[in-house]
C-alpha cells in the first residue's frame, strides 16, 4: 500500500508525448497543473476545472479524459498525450491541426487543445463518423467563439485526412 503525505512532494514519472518526464506533486495537485507548472507543457488549458468544459482534455493510456479530474499522482507511470504531441516530427501541423486551421475552426484557440485531443481518441474509435456522431462526440467540449459548424467541418476533414493516411501506411 502506497501512502502519500499531504504535505510531501512526491515524484511522478510519466511518458509525455513519447518522452519520459519527471516532476513532483502534492497528492492534491491536478494533472493539469502538473503538466503546466511542473513539466512546463502549457498546451493543455484549464478553464472550468470541474469537468464540464473539456478544455483540459488529454489522453491517458490512449483514452481521452479530463486532466482536471485526474490527480497527478494517479498519472504516475502512465502514458500521456497532449496537444504538443499532435504536430509532425518537423514541427508542422498534424492532420487534426491542419483541418482546424483550414476550416477556421478556432478564433481565440483556448478550447482547441481539448477539442483536438477528444478527436484524436474519437477518430481512432470511429474513423468515418457522421455529422450527428461528431456532434455527440464533441458535446463534452465547449467553444465560446466560433460556433460549432466550422469545428464539425474540420472534424470531418480531419477524419478524411486520417483515413487517407492510414491507407497509405
Amino acid at each position: 500500500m502506497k501512502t502519500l503525505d499531504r504535505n510531501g512532494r512526491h515524484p511522478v514519472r510519466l511518458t509525455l508525448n513519447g518522452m519520459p518526464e519527471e516532476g513532483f506533486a502534492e497528492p492534491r495537485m491536478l494533472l493539469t497543473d502538473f503538466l503546466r507548472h511542473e513539466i512546463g507543457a502549457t498546451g493543455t488549458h484549464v478553464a472550468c476545472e470541474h469537468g464540464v468544459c473539456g478544455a483540459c482534455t488529454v489522453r491517458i493510456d490512449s483514452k481521452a479524459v479530463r486532466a482536471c479530474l485526474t490527480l497527478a499522482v494517479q498519472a504516475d507511470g502512465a502514458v500521456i498525450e497532449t496537444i504538443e504531441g499532435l504536430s509532425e516530427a518537423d514541427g508542422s501541423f498534424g492532420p487534426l491541426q491542419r483541418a482546424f486551421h483550414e476550416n477556421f475552426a478556432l478564433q481565440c484557440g483556448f478550447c482547441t487543445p481539448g477539442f483536438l485531443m477528444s478527436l484524436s481518441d474519437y477518430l481512432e474509435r470511429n474513423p468515418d463518423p457522421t455529422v450527428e456522431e461528431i456532434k455527440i462526440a464533441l458535446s463534452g467540449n465547449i467553444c465560446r467563439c466560433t460556433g460549432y459548424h466550422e469545428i464539425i467541418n474540420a472534424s470531418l476533414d480531419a477524419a478524411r485526412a486520417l483515413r487517407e493516411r492510414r491507407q497509405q501506411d
Partner: protein
Amino acid sequence: MKPAPFDYVRAESVDEAVAVLAEHGDEARVLAGGQSLMPMLNMRLVRPEILVDISGLPELAHIEAEGDAVTIGASITQGELADWPELETALPAVAAALPHVGHFQTRNRGTVCGSICHADPSSELPLCLALLGGEVELHSARGVRTVPADEFQQGVLTTAKEPDELVARTRLPKAQDGERFAFLEFQHRHGDFAVVAVAARRAGDSVSLAVGGVADRPEVCHWSALPGDAVDDALNDLAWALGGGDDIHATARHRRQLVRHLGKQAIDATAAVGAGA
C-alpha cells in the same frame, strides 16, 4: 479551484482499502474514476482527510456474467462496460442508457459503481439498478453485506453505505427471454444530467417503469397488467405521485409532462415487436 490538502493511499487490495476506511471513517473518501468526486473536491464541497484510490485495482476490474446476473467490479469504467461484447444481450437497458452517461471522455474514467455510489437522483446507472432490482455488495473491516437496490439509494446523494464501507461490486439481473426494455431521457444538452429519465421493462403482461430526475431517487412503478388504454391514466397518476419540484432546469409541471410523455414512449417501445432496447 483546487482541492484542499489530503493524504492519498493507493490501495493494492480491497482488504487494504477497507482497513484505511475502518481507521478514518467519514474522514476518508474512496476515489475510483473520480468523475463525481473530483469536481466536488475541486470546488471544496467535500474536504476529506484521506483519499483511498481503488482505480485499477485488479481485484475489482471484472465484468462477469454468471447465472442470472452480471457482476460489475468497482474499478470497471462506464466505457469498459459499454465496450463489453455481451452488454446488448445481457443488459439491454444499460446498453441504451450508457451513451447518456456524461460524455465519452468522462465515461473513459468514470466507473459504474461510482455513479451508483454518487446516487444523483437524475443519474442513469442508478436508474437501471432500480429498474432491474439489482444489488450492491459492500465490504468493510466488519465483513461483507449485500444490499438490494431499493434499500441502497435512499435520497439525494444518500445511500445505505456506511463511511467505513466500500462498494466492491454491483450485480444486475440479466435480461430473460421474452423481456423487453426501453430507455429514454430528456436533457437540455447531450451529456447533461437528465431532466427526466425513464427505463421500462415488460415481461409478459407485467410492466415496470423506473423514473429518474423527479423524486429524490429513482422510483420504480410495477403494473401486473397495463392494457394500452390504461397507460395514460397510469402515467398521470405516477407523475403526480412522484412529486418533484421546480428548479433551474425545469418546472414541476414540465417534469410531470415528461413523465407522461417519455413514460408512454418507453412503455410503447417495449410493446413493439422487435424492440430490444
